[in-house]
C-alpha cells in the first residue's frame, strides 16, 4: 500500500524524496517508512490508527499528544512493551506490535 503523505504544500517542502525509506513490520505485515521519523507517524501514514488495547476495558488507543506525555501510543517494539512510539525513531527492520494490556517485561539476558 502506498503511504498517505502530504506532497504539495503552499509553504512547506517536506523533501520526502530525499529521505531514506526503510522496511519494518507491524503485527507481522511488512510496511515502509522513513528512517528517523516517529514510529507512530510511519504507522499513521500506512493507515494504522490502533496502537494498543487497554488492560481493563479493552478500548482501542492510538496517537494523541505526539510529545511523549500521554501514554496513548504505547506499543511493543522489538519485544519491549510501553514504547512511546510518537517520540521513538523508526529504524530498518523494527518489529512493531499492537500492545494488548499492560505489557510484559522480559528479564534481561
Amino acid at each position: 500500500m502506498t503511504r498517505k503523505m502530504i506532497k504539495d504544500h503552499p509553504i512547506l517542502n517536506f523533501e520526502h524524496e530525499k529521505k531514506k525509506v526503510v522496511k519494518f513490520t507491524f503485527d507481522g505485515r511488512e510496511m515502509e517508512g522513513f528512517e528517523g521519523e516517529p514510529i507512530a507517524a510511519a504507522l499513521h501514514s500506512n493507515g494504522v490508527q490502533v496502537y494498543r488495547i487497554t488492560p481493563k476495558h479493552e478500548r482501542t488507543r492510538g496517537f494523541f499528544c505526539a510529545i511523549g506525555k500521554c501514554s496513548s501510543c504505547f506499543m511493543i517494539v522489538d519485544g519491549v512493551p510501553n514504547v512511546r512510539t510518537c517520540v521513538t525513531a523508526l529504524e530498518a527492520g523494527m518489529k512493531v506490535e499492537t500492545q494488548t494490556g499492560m505489557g510484559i517485561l522480559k528479564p534481561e539476558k
Partner: protein
Amino acid sequence: MKTTEILVVGGGPAGLSAAIEAASLGCDVVLMDSDLKLGGQLIKQTHKFFGSREEFAGTRGFEIGNLLFDEVEKYKKEGKLEIFSNTTVTGYYKEDGIVSYTIGEETYDLIKPQRIVMATGAQEKRIAFPNNDLPGVYGAGAVQTLMNVYGVAPGEKVLMIGAGNIGLIVSYQLMQAGVKVAGIVEAMPRIGGYWVHAAKIRRLGVPIYLQHTITEALGDKVIEGAVIQEIDNTFKLVGEPMKIDCDTICMAIGLTPTCELLWSAGCEMKFVPQLCGYVARRDAMMRTSHPDIWVAGDAAGIEEASAAMVEGRIAGLAAAASLKPEGCQMLKEKSTDYLKRLENLRAGETGAKIRCGLEQVCCECWG
C-alpha cells in the same frame, strides 16, 4: 556524574532562547528535550507572526525556529552548548539538586547542574464526551506534528473543537495540507482567536458553530463521525443534535503548563486561571522561589511563542549572571530592553488576561 553550569529543560522557543543567552555569557549549558527534533511547537507553525520587528513580525513560525537553530549551532561549535534530544527529564531531587533523565526508552542517567531553567512547555487539555478516547481524537499539537513536521495527513475530514487561536490556525493549516475541515465547534458565543485567522477560514467556507459543543464521538474502533449540539448561556444543551461527517476530531480547547518538575523542586506554586493552571511564583527575571531555578515560556503560564522567546532570554541571562558576576552589567542592559518588549507584547485588550494573571504570581524580588 555529569555536571553542568546551566541545565535548560525543554528545547522549544523559550528553552532555546534561554540556552543561547546563557551560552553567550560564557556558561557551559546543557539543553535537554524529549522530542526527536528541537523547536517545540514553534517549528510546526506556518503562519506569519505579528508584533514588531524584534519579535520577527512577518516571519513564519518555523522560519523563526531556523533562526534560533543558527544561534544554537554557533554555541554548539564553540563547545558551550550541548544538546540532548529525545531525552526526557524525569525528576529533580531537592535534597542534592540532582536531575534524572532518560535518553530514548532505555538509557537512564543523572546530571548535577548548578542552575536550571525550566522551559517545559505545556500539554493539551481535554474535555469529557463519550468515545473521546478513540483513535482519531487528536490534540491540536499532535495534528500539527503529523502534518507540518512529518508531512503525514492526520485524516481526510477533521472536526475542530475550539475557535481560539490554535483551533483557527490549525484549521487553516489543515486546509493548506489538503485536508478538509468539517467545521469548528466553539462553546463560547464568540470567536476566541484573532479575527484575521477566523476570516481566512470563513472565506474558505468552513462553518464555525458558536455556542455549540461536541456531545459524542461516533465509531467502534476508530472515529467515524461526531455529534454536536447547541448550548445556551448556562452551557445547557438546547436544540437538536447534529451529526457531523468526519474521521478525525482535533482538540484545540487549550493548554495547561507542564509543571511537575517545578512541584518536585518545591517551588512556590499558584493556581492562576488566566495563565491556564498551576504556575511558579517568580520575580521579573523569571527566578522561582527556589534560588537555583528559573522558569520561562508556557511552563510559566500559557501565552504565545513571541513572549516565550523573550522570557527565555531573560531567564537564561539571569541564570547565567548568577554564576558570572561579570555578566550582571549585561543582564542590566539587556533585561531593560527585554522587559520593554514583553510589555509591548502584552499591551492592549488582548494582553489584559495575561497581565491580570501575571499580577498574581510576579513578586518584586526574592531578596
